[in-house]
């Protein structure tokens, strides 16, 4: 398990909840992918429109999704994006691509963890 991407304690929580709801870990994976992708799309649109406030808002949403899922690295990236957008700092498009890659890597790491569990 890649601890840089996924928080061990949060995975333990999800595993514990699976004792009552066996389908829960898979449900979380699907919800994460959908919510994170949607928030990233919002960030992209806001970046294109140079709307710092919207970008901050979508980055905040992404941070929340990442935190609830235990996606440590994604949470940090989203938090930095939120902070920078809040300060109206210049933001390179590459950062959004990096976030997309982190979402994919987190998804794969979680799917691997599911298979091993």
């Amino acid at each position, binding site marked *: 398990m890649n601890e840089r991407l996924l928080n061990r304690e*949060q995975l333990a*929580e*999800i595993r*514990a*909840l699976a*004792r*009552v*709801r066996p389908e*829960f870990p898979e*449900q*979380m994976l699907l*919800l*994460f992918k*959908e*919510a994170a992708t949607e928030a990233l799309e919002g960030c992209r649109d806001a970046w294109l429109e140079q709307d710092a406030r919207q970008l901050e*808002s979508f980055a*905040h*949403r992404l*941070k*929340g*999704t990442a*935190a*609830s*899922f*235990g996606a440590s690295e994604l949470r940090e990236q989203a938090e930095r994006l939120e902070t920078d957008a809040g300060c109206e700092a210049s933001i390179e498009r590459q950062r959004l691509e990096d976030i997309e890659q982190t979402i994919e890597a987190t998804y794969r790491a979680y799917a691997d963890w599911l298979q091993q569990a």
Partner: protein
Amino acid sequence: MTRDQLDSAQAPAKDCVVGVIDDDPVNAALLEAMLARAGYTGLTFASAADFRRRSGPGSVDLILLDWDMPGESGLDFLRLMREQEQMTTPVIFVTHYDRDEQIAQGLNAGADDYMTKPVEATVLMARIESVLRRLNRKGETVESWPPFEFDVSQRSLRIDGKSRHATNREFELMLFMFRRHGRVVTRESLLTHVWRLSSNVATRSIDTHVSRLRKLFGLDGSSGWRLEGVYQKGYCLKRVEGSEGSPDPDA
């Protein structure tokens, strides 16, 4: 509730419905699963508007409220509900906003407690139980809505001071409705908390019992209380206006 208890199995169903208002589906699912494991019935809502449309404050016993949501924020929703709509349902903020001034703002707007995400299940349950304890039914064993008196520990009922026999189910159903009088109680909630059945079980038993309560205990209005059906939702127990019973102590 300890971590071991939470880990071991699902707790027995509790007589409490918790609304989760959160636009983040991941967090909402997490909270709802935590609630289910602890024996609470969790209902999730994607926004304040969704909550108003599908439910309303009277249909839940406690609300877990996110702050940052599209449209109406959790803070605006809470202020409005407290100030204009006189909502007394306990509310716990569950949010990523963690600055001291934000916590103070949330509590000053009328929240009963405040937690920052991500939440830990044992802490969340302890906070919920603490809030419910503070606001709960005064710790009395006799609960009274004149002319009805329920002795919860003895499982006995008095109406107008006279002892009346009620079956366990009738007693539980009446007590459940009186504790929520004035609010719409869904059939799902009755099935879960009174019948202890999965809410997707179809049963006519509720209608039969309601009909009996009306006749046997005067919940057709003759006692000063009327148990009404609410189309496509459930039931609502109302005090009959102008009834001669003692004033409603909760009004």
